C-alpha cells in the first residue's frame, strides 16, 4: 500500500488511472452507503483543486450558482451539521 494507514481495514494503492480511481470510488460508495451519487474527478484533480477540497470539504451552491456555504478545510472543518443548517437557511 502506498497510501496512508489510518487504521482502516480497506487497503489500496493510490490510483494511477481513471479505471482504478473509479474502482476505488465505487468501493467507497458501496462500503459507506452514504446515499448520494458519487462522481469522480479526473486524474488532473481539477475540481478538487478549484474547490481546495483535499482531503474533504463541504459546500452549498444556491440556485443562482453562488456559494451559499463553504466549510473550513477538512478533516476538522468537515461539519455536516453546518451544511444542514445552511440548507435549511436557503
Amino acid at each position, binding site marked *: 500500500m502506498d*497510501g496512508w494507514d489510518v487504521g482502516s481495514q480497506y487497503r489500496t494503492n493510490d490510483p494511477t488511472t481513471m479505471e482504478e480511481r473509479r474502482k476505488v470510488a*465505487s468501493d467507497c460508495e458501496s462500503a459507506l452507503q452514504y446515499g448520494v451519487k458519487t462522481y469522480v474527478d479526473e486524474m488532473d484533480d*481539477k475540481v478538487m483543486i478549484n474547490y481546495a477540497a483535499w*482531503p474533504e470539504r463541504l459546500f452549498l451552491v444556491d440556485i443562482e450558482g453562488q456559494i451559499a456555504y*463553504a466549510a473550513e478545510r477538512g478533516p476538522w472543518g468537515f461539519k455536516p451539521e453546518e451544511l444542514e443548517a445552511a440548507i435549511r437557511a436557503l
Partner: protein
Amino acid sequence: MATKQQPPIIQSKDDAIRWQDQLELNVPKVGDGAPDFELADVAGAQSVGLSSFRGKRPVALIFGSFT
C-alpha cells in the same frame, strides 16, 4: 480562478498541511460564483455538470478522498 497546481507527494503531516495551505489560496468563498465542472459517475457512464442545476435547485457538494 485556480492556478495550475500539481499534487505533491505527501509523506508527512507537514507535507499535507503545506499542500492544503497552497490549495486554500483559491478556495471559493460565500458569495463567489461556484466553479463549474462536469464529472462522470463511478461507472463512467453518466456525467453531470454543476451549471445544469442553475435556476432549478441548490446543490450540496460533499468532497472526499478515499485514498
